[in-house]
């Protein structure tokens, strides 16, 4: 068992690097993300723990390249680059947290209702269809605004609990297309228990789509958090995130032009994080499913 797992892993990495040789964009995304990880990991040791709550009015709102601050300072007087590192770390935690939680929920429930069908499936699908046409971003904004802002972990939990339906529906559809295949029928007849059929029979066959969906969910939840915090209904004051760095632009159009250095670096980090993960997810999907390979 251990041996076959190892073989699967090494095969995946072989395919993965083979894909990257043909895909310049994927390689770029990987390099940028790794660079960002290293910067976040090393940089966090230099970030003071009170960076979100400090207020140093004398040094506030400095433009770039003044007073020893390469990108200037934020409106509370913290160094912009250090705030950026703290924010990128928080956004990354939120993205990975929400995507992992949602993917776990969707694999568990989606596969079970897809495999068994029946009234549970019918009921779940009615709930999902209903939930999908609701204005989820507005509901999230209301829930977040009920308290004076959210901590990171409660934000992850609520975001996951509100936005799981699309992922569950995807996993269910994928499971439905596998259930009637011959190999599933064969293992049913030979008496394999259902959980083994689901998790070691069907799951590997649909994993390539689940992985690319994981990266999309990750990018999407970073986007939702950033957007809602930008509007003022997200993380609580004192927790720096990419959205709270953009909050100074909210409602003042001239700032966007006059002080472009406030949002251009944040936007670049956002693009690397979200686009990088989506591209990398697609590379993983092609590496797992060799029918889609670029070669």
């Amino acid at each position, binding site marked *: 068992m251990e041996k076959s797992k190892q073989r699967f892993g090494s095969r995946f990495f072989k395919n993965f690097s083979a894909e990257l040789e043909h895909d310049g964009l994927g390689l770029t995304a990987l390099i940028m993300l790794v660079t960002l990880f290293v910067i976040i990991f090393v940089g966090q040791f230099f970030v003071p723990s009170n960076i979100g709550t400090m207020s140093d009015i004398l040094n506030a709102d400095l433009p770039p390249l003044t007073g020893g601050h390469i990108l200037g300072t934020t409106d509370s007087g913290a160094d912009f680059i250090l705030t950026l590192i703290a924010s990128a770390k928080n956004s990354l935690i939120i993205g990975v947290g929400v995507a992992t939680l949602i993917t776990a929920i969707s694999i568990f429930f989606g596969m079970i209702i897809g495999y068994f069908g029946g009234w549970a499936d019918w009921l779940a699908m009615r709930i999902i269809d209903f939930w999908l046409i609701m*204005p989820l971003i*507005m509901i999230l904004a209301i829930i977040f605004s009920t308290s004076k802002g959210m901590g990171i972990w409660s934000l992850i939990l609520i975001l996951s609990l509100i936005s799981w339906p699309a992922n569950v529906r995807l996993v269910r559809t994928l499971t439905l297309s596998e259930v009637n295949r011959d190999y599933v029928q064969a293992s049913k007849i030979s008496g394999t228990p259902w959980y083994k059929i689901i998790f070691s029979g069907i799951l590997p066959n649909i994993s390539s789509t689940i992985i690319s969906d994981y990266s999309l969910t990750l*990018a999407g939840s970073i986007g*939702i958090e950033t957007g809602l915090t*930008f509007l003022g209904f997200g993380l609580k004051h004192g927790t720096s995130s990419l959205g709270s760095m953009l909050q100074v632009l909210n409602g003042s159009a001239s700032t*966007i032009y006059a002080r472009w250095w406030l949002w251009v670096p944040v936007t670049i980090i956002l693009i690397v994080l979200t*686009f990088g993960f989506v591209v990398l997810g697609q590379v993983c999907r092609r590496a797992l499913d060799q029918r889609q390979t670029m070669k």
Partner: protein
Amino acid sequence: MFKTIVRRVLIMLPQIFFVSILIFMLAQLMPGDPFYGNLNPNSDVATIERMRHAAGLDLPWYEQYVRWVVNVFHGDFGTSYTVNKGVAVSEIIGQRIWPTVSMGIIATILTYFFAMSQALISARNENKRIDKFLVVWNTLTSAVPSFVFYFVMMVLFVYVIPIFPSSGTGIDETQGFFTNFFGNLYHAFLPALTIALFSTNSVFQYLRSNLLDQQAQDYVRTARAKGVQIKDVFRKHILRNAFLPIASGIGYSITGVLGGAMFAETVFGYPGLGALFVQALSGRDYTIITALMLLQGILSLFGGLLSDIISAWVDPRIRVK
């Protein structure tokens, strides 16, 4: 066809009930109430209690729910507490709805225009450089939160090339219809164009794979074997078959209107319903929040209905059953 529509409408009735329950629950979740939220040293507890009683806030939740539903059916959404104190919510929404509607319509038309032309170019040049570029571009715009693109467009077309206004809706009550119409068009165009440019992904991906599918069909080979030019095959056969299914998506695009407008209207300083929602949430103006949520919820349900009707109308195979 008639049967399909009736069935679909019947499904909608319980949905409307659930939407109202959901929104009412969210409203109950919000802390405080408008009267105790505005305490000052001269407040008298007895007066506040009397006002709470008049507003029905001391009743159990199910009686409040019934009261709320009955009021809504009479078109009474209550009065605003903080955004525009004392003015009826229906009046505030009435003032703000047209900017959002006009922006939404322009944005939808432009989105479909951009997405369709991009998909067509992509499918005609499969695996060539332009196709790869368009696929990557659409992945980029869907992955990155769209409001950062709004900053870029704002800087480009308001400040660097100053051809669009930086805020306002261009609607002025004292002016005549035509001044308002063109003024609003001028103000709504940049937000609408920006939304459209960066939200093409879903239609683009769907249409592109549809077009590629259709190109490989037998009828295309037959037509080509007859000697029909590929351009004509596209115009007469492929386009029709590939474009019809996306018509049903128009209904669903209503679902995200207000949620998307929250960001676009805030960045572009365009005071429509999305900006109103943000304003009301910051000021905890519950009557406006619940009214807007109800409006969006009901609109979404009608959007879903519209989509299902269009797809049944376009594709007869769905009607069976």
